[in-house]
Every structure is written in structure tokens, then in C-alpha cells.
């Protein structure tokens, strides 16, 4: 078990470096790629952001009643190739959650049924609310904790008007709840509420990059379950829609990476 933990720490460290590199790359505003979305939750209103947020674009295009071909194309290609790999290795909001989860605190187990909430968020707040209530402040972006952290708070600090204080207070309350959830439950936001995760989870079952349980090596030791950052059993639920492909479970030797 000690060897497994050591290997898992190595993978987590590599992941942290990759996430930090992705954040640095996405924070070069002079790249001026804001007409193209990055396949991660990184608000395009952030003063540093170099690319558009796919959820923000989806919300805007739903308001316009226009189909976002390029955004769907990018998300579809990324999902087909890697499933939720970007959630585990590239998403800046995932990085924040991973760092917060390192804080020693009481952990909670999330009820299994909550994982379906993210599909409701995707359909309700990203697709339907902007379509049915255009111009009203009930879309996903009006509650998005990533948007609050990366955009609303920085702009408010810089003295730019970010709307009414009641709205900002509500957003900060939601952000606080999500950050506390990240401390108590690993990747709580990604598992329960992230609409981008909901989109990518559909691809996990058949994506090119996948995990392979090597059943003959399984000794039922439970190490994979213990290590898993999203609380699934990687042997029984290999390539589940919840798996963020963090690859921590591969350190046990009972789960391998497979391409094709």
C-alpha cells in the first residue's frame, strides 16, 4: 500500500504541474483567442483569460437561439479523444478544488444520487433558461462559481461595476459553498454540479483514451476505491461517466491506460 501511495503521489504531482501549466497558458491575454473556446471551465470575463468559456458561449448562443457549431465541435472532439481527461488534467477550477482538498478537514461522502444534478444544471441553466428567459439573470453564468472567482471578484476589486451588490453577495455565497464542498469532498463541484463535466461524461464510455481494469490482477484490496478522487470503484465502474481520468488508480497496477 505504501508503494501505491508513493506512485499515486507522483501522478498527483504530475497532474498538478500540468494543471498549473494549462492555467498559465490560458492566462496569456495577448494570445487574443477569445473567439475560440477552451474545453475547460475558465471564465472569459476573467481579466487574464485568453480564450472563451464553452459554457458561457453555450449560454450566449442559447439566448440568440443559434447553434454553436464550433463550440460543440471542439467539446465533441476533445470528449471523443479523452473523455473527462481535461477535467482531471487541465481544468483551472479543478486545480483550485484539488488544492483546497489538500487542507486537512473533515471529509464527507456525497450521496450517489447527487451526481445527476449536473445534468439538470446543464439542461436547465445552460440550455433552457437562456432560451426561455433571454436577458433575465437566471442563466448558469449568473451563478457560476468559476465566474465569480475569476471575474466578478477581480473586477469588483478593481472598481468595475459588476452589477448589484445583492447579486454579487449571492454569487459569493454560492462560491463559498462550492469551495467548502471542495475541501470536504474531493472534486465536489465536478461530481455534482459542473455542466461541462456533464457534457464530457457522455464520452467517457467510448473515448479513445480509456481505463482498462486488469481483472486477473485484482486482489479486492480496495486500494483503487480508496485512491479514486471522485469516489467510484475503478474496477467495477471502469470508464464510468464520473471518472475524471486523473489516473491515480493506475498506481495500484490493477487498472491500466488503454488507447483505442
Amino acid at each position, binding site marked *: 500500500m505504501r508503494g501505491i501511495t508513493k506512485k499515486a503521489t507522483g501522478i498527483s504531482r504530475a497532474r498538478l504541474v500540468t494543471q498549473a501549466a494549462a492555467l498559465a497558458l490560458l492566462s496569456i*491575454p495577448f494570445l487574443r483567442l*477569445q*473567439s*475560440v*473556446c477552451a474545453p475547460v471551465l475558465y*471564465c*472569459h*470575463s476573467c*481579466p487574464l*483569460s485568453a480564450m*472563451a468559456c464553452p459554457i*458561457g*458561449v453555450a449560454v*450566449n*448562443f442559447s*439566448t*440568440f*437561439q*443559434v447553434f*454553436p*457549431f*464550433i*463550440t*460543440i*465541435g*471542439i*467539446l*465533441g*472532439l476533445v470528449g*471523443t*479523444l479523452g473523455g473527462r481527461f481535461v477535467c482531471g488534467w487541465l481544468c483551472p477550477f479543478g486545480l483550485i478544488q484539488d488544492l483546497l482538498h489538500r487542507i486537512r478537514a473533515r471529509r464527507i461522502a456525497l450521496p450517489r444520487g447527487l451526481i445527476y444534478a449536473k445534468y439538470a444544471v446543464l439542461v436547465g441553466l445552460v440550455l433552457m433558461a437562456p432560451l426561455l428567459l433571454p436577458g433575465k439573470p437566471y442563466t448558469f*453564468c*449568473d451563478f*457560476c462559481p468559476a*465566474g465569480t472567482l475569476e*471575474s*466578478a471578484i477581480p*473586477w*469588483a476589486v478593481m472598481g*468595475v*461595476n*459588476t452589477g448589484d451588490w445583492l447579486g454579487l453577495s449571492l454569487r459569493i455565497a454560492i462560491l463559498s459553498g462550492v469551495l467548502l464542498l471542495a475541501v470536504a469532498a474531493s472534486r465536489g463541484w465536478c461530481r455534482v454540479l459542473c455542466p461541462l463535466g456533464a457534457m464530457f461524461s457522455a*464520452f467517457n464510455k*467510448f*473515448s*479513445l483514451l480509456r481505463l482498462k481494469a486488469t481483472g486477473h490482477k485484482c486482489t479486492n484490496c480496495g486500494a483503487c476505491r480508496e485512491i479514486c478522487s471522485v469516489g467510484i470503484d475503478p474496477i467495477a465502474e471502469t470508464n464510468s461517466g464520473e471518472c475524471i481520468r486523473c489516473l491515480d488508480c493506475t498506481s495500484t497496477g490493477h487498472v491500466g491506460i488503454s488507447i*483505442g
Partner: protein
Amino acid sequence: MTLAMQRSRILRLLLIAACVVLFAGAIAYSLRSVRYSVYGKPETELTVTKLSLTHRIERRQDGKFSAPRREQTDKRSDKACPT
């Protein structure tokens, strides 16, 4: 690898190929053919995306894009507006 596993792998690879063609096709189609009338000029989806981030456009009843009735953005920059 059993025959059933081989078959499911082939099906999966076919599905991946179909998805790649579909999504790459969606991007190519948009870049090549999709144009929206913005301020009376035909513009690509990329332009509409960029303008939408800065809330510089809204869609009228006739489907065309125009400047919003109430200007919401900081005119000094093309940076996405604070949400």
C-alpha cells in the same frame, strides 16, 4: 480477447471515427458556410462568439444581429465584460 470483445472494440472505434468526422465536420461547416448578419454584414461564428462575450450584439426578431439597445460594455476595450 474474445470475439465479443473484439466486436465491441471495433464498434467503439467506428463510433469514435464517426464522432470525429461529425465534430470536425461541424467546425469545418461553420468556418466554411455559416455566416450571420451582424450590423448588416455577413460575419463568421467566431466573430459572433467574440462579440457575444462583450455583449456588443443582440438578436432581433428577424434573426439578424444588431447593437444592443442599451450599451452595457466598456467601450474603451474589447475585453469580455465582467459578468
